[in-house]
């Protein structure tokens, strides 16, 4: 019996989507988005398009970094204005 990796990648993407939508704190969501990107890259590599896999790994990395910079900046502004406990 052989378990192909496509099923593991499908579970990876569904768990990443459900966790990314249903978590409430913004910092918890980034980790689930990283899991979603891992599933996408593994499905692309199973198709055999390796150049697309390299480029998409770079793009998910850049997207996560940009969102984290935005989140830290928003929290700093809220702390500066005294709205955060």
């Amino acid at each position: 019996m052989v378990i192909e990796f496509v099923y593991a990648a499908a579970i990876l993407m569904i768990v990443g989507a459900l966790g990314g939508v249903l978590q409430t704190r913004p910092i918890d969501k980034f980790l689930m988005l990283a899991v979603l990107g891992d599933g996408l890259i593994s499905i692309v590599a199973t198709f055999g398009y390796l150049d697309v896999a390299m480029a998409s790994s770079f793009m998910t990395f850049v997207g996560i970094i940009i969102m984290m910079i935005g989140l830290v900046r928003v929290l700093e502004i809220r702390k500066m204005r005294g709205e955060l406990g």
Partner: protein
Amino acid sequence: MISATGTLPLISFYLGLTLVLIGGLGVVFGPKTSTEPIVRIINLTVPSTGVALIFLSYNYTLAMLTFLSVNPILYIIMIRAIIRLEEMGGFTS
């Protein structure tokens, strides 16, 4: 268990449709999207990944690559708008 290599585009297509459905409902009705606007941008990542997966199932590689490359530019503009709105006084609705 049946082999997955023959039915790979089918799995990719239905997975993409599922992700678009979950992500679309999450962007509109998700928890805390009305009070904290950055949560809505983070939820927007899920349907964009689903659309990229549907592109992949039809072997439109160049379209998928362009779509994935345009997404961070979109995020830069939206995050900039949110920071500007936060500087001006925050959300009230």
